[in-house]
């Protein structure tokens, strides 16, 4: 089973913190891969490049050239880039791939006139197009193309990879919201695109578990006519898309997410203050009900971070921290490694009805049960 670790902090911190935490949980994963999602970036990305879309991925030399041509054709000018081509031998099990890149672009003229939705759509289209270009001869791999977002994925032991890529060395890689996952996809063939966390238009999430309703949910999402609902190399990629659908398409608060994926039973709903709304939601979102064990940790565009459990709470998950920094972890030793001086009595392990949210201000752990009244949103 994968191990998940996420940090949300008021000040940018090194991604190595999260990787170290993963390392403490190594008994629980096989060290076969790592995925990182960095948001709320510090350093130059914050100071000079606010709002610039950042492309992250892995490229060969030829891939980089093709990328340059492609972005130029679209009027995107690279402003600043972190390009890292390791000279040393990669750790055991990691293939030599080329350059790991995070490139921030200046958007073309006229971009500002587009609505945010149109801008988003365009960025997603470009990311998909690049991914497709790369799929032909494997020279381009893109994981995200969105402002304030860097995603790193690689096969191999998380700690070794982190050190090999020198992730802690560059202060421009420090971030406020970090999702980290240890283990590659082992159900199917190894594929970097199948590695968590997944990202779409500002919504990122990672999961550990199996989604037995994968095919029906995938088919359902694909039929929603949303650009970007594609890929699905992993059966849990749908969790990210459901979070995207819930928050961005339906415009609901993240507290409604749990009601979409694991709705209440009818008798539990009977005396709920929002029963009519919940019944409506349950009925029409029935196709997105997940089964199987899962703990989902995710972060949203506004910088908030959340954790939810499956209906039966079959996966571990704990949230803890102190003012300014909070950790979401599969195991408590992960949190201990990063925030040992927190008040442990305030740690919270969400059960089958709970959603845990830590807002962008990193002030406190907010918990909400599905039995609670939802914020007025409609």
């Amino acid at each position, binding site marked *: *089973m994968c191990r998940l670790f996420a940090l949300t902090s008021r000040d940018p911190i090194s991604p190595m913190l999260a990787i170290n935490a993963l390392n403490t949980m190594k008994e629980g994963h096989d060290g076969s891969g790592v995925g990182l999602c960095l948001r709320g970036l510090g350093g130059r990305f914050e100071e000079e490049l606010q709002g610039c879309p950042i492309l992250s991925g892995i490229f060969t030399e030829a891939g980089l050239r093709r990328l340059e041509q492609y972005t130029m054709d679209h009027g995107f000018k690279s402003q600043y880039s972190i390009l890292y081509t390791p000279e040393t031998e990669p750790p055991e099990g990691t293939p030599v791939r080329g350059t790991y890149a995070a490139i921030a672009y200046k958007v073309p003229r006229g971009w500002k006139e587009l609505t945010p939705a149109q801008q988003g759509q365009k960025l997603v289209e470009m990311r998909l197009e690049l991914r497709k270009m790369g799929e032909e001869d494997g020279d381009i791999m893109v994981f995200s193309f969105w402002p304030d977002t860097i995603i790193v994925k690689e096969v191999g032991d998380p700690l070794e990879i982190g050190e090999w890529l020198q992730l802690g060395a560059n202060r421009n890689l420090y971030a406020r919201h970090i999702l980290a996952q240890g283990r590659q996809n082992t159900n199917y063939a190894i594929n970097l695109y199948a590695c968590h966390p997944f990202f779409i238009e500002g919504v990122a999430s990672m999961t550990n*578990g*199996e989604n*037995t*309703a*994968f*095919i*029906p949910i995938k*088919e*359902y999402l694909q*039929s*929603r*006519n949303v650009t970007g609902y594609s890929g699905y190399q992993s059966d849990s990629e749908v969790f990210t898309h459901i979070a995207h*659908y819930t928050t961005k*398409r*339906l415009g609901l608060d993240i507290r409604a997410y749990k009601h979409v994926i*694991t*709705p209440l*039973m*009818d008798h539990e709903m009977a005396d709920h203050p929002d029963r*009519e*709304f919940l019944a*409506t*939601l349950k*009925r*029409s*979102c*029935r*196709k997105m*009900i*997940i*089964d*199987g*064990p899962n703990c989902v940790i995710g972060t949203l565009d506004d910088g908030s971070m959340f954790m939810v459990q499956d*209906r*039966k709470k*079959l996966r571990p998950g704990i949230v803890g921290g102190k003012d300014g920094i909070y950790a979401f972890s599969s195991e408590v030793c992960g949190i201990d490694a990063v925030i040992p001086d927190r008040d442990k009595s305030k740690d919270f392990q969400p059960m089958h009805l709970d959603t845990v949210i830590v807002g962008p201000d990193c002030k406190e752990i907010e918990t909400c049960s599905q039995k609670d009244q939802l914020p007025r949103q*409609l």
Partner: protein
Amino acid sequence: MLTERPITPSTLGVKDLNWQIEWDKDLCTQCGRCTSVCPVNAIELGVHRKREIKTPASLMKKAENEYSIFYGIRQKTDPAYACIGCSMCNMVCPNNAIGPKREEGSTTQKFHNDRGGNPRTRGGRRNSGESLLDQIKFMRISMLTDPALDAGRHEFRLNTLLGRVQSPEESLKTYQEHGWKPPVREIYPLVIGGMSFGAMSPNMWEGLQMGVAYLNEELNMPVRISTGEGGCPPRLLRSRFLKYVILQIASGYFGWDEIIHAIPEMKVDPCAIEIKYGQGAKPGDGGLLMWYKVNKLIAAIRGVPEGVSLPSPPTHQTQYSIEESVAKMIQSMSMAWGFRVPVYPKISASSTSLAVLNNLTRNPYAAGLAIDGEDGGTGAAYNVSMNHMGHPIASNLRDCYNALVVTGKQNELPLIAGGGIGKSGNLAANAAALIMLGASAVQVGKYVMQAGAGCLGSEKDRCNVCNIGVCPKGITSQDPRLYRRLDPEKVAERVVDFYLSFDTEIKKIIAPLGRSTSLPIGMADALGISDRDAADRLGIKYVV
């Protein structure tokens, strides 16, 4: 039997018949029960004369004839009275002295099933034992990283939705604007398919309704039953139990007068209205209730004279196109109940099912689509229709589901599949396979008769005389002497029994697949079959 009896082309010997009676002279007490119970008068009391030649040991005396007479059972060889293998004679025989035996090698009888130039009609369903559904395996079992769910311990949500479900966007809009919500019923996914009051005996009907009411009210299982064509008893229409009933309107409109007139007095809405355009056992034909069964009660409920055959026209005569039909029928039926009742059509599976589906997806009032495959049953149809017409349900359903997936309406328009589910007794496995191929619910008729009332019919042409009102079990007969045999209370008990065991079995299937909180509709990745063509056609895994 005369020695000089004429032998004509249609003269058959006992050996030519499909079913032969074995009668044991030594065990028989000659009580006569078998002959009186035989629904088709296949056997009669025979007076047999026996001549023995007694030859004395010496040559002094001549040989003598000794004549004796004994009484026994004689099987008629006239195909009109051929034994149907129902085994009622055996059931009533105190000594087990008699019973039918299938003669596999005899094929002659079928050439003579058309007395007077009328092709054979019968009840039942196709006489073919094979079932594709039985070959499907469930193979996505969670074992190592994911604890398999426990069918006996975890919570399960098996209910499904009948009715138009709005998309998330639409439904939130409707909620916000307090708009009209299409009616949706939460029902148990195994529906009792249409078997009409007219085809069924009153005792059978009562037993079914009692069973359904018990399941709903005592066991909290929202089981629904369709009436079939022919109306509904007035008392039921005006009772609170109507909410468990799906009223069927077919092309003959039999019984609809009664229903329409009862609307103002209905205490509750019916569960749904099913508009029958076709049924799997006789695609392209209307209903057929032969005169044998049209007695006073049936005539009164259907609003027809007594003792006449009641064939429904093959299509609804007031409409000539499916578009018109969808628009008019669905709308006017919805209107009759103030748009509070889901209305959906039922069609026989055929290569045009997709066209019907297409029309429905565009109609906001359409509440679903029921599809009946070639293995569906009926109370009366021509042999040729039953055996040789129609489309298998699995691929038809799959096509329809896939068509919905393309348009993104797979959650919105429920598909109800029927026709041959549980034909070899594997009700839960067959139902689960269809659900995973895309059905929101499944419907069964004959299984209910077989399990609930002990129907004797089989896929080997056993019994199947449902059409002529002589049902030996009293299930499909309107003759009180016959249906007195059936105790409605016992039928209800059996219906409850098999529903409960179905419930257990279906959980045993879906729990190891890791599903419990929603029905695995469309979870085709869990299915496998060892037939490559079938696997390709259905889009499931090929496994050997």
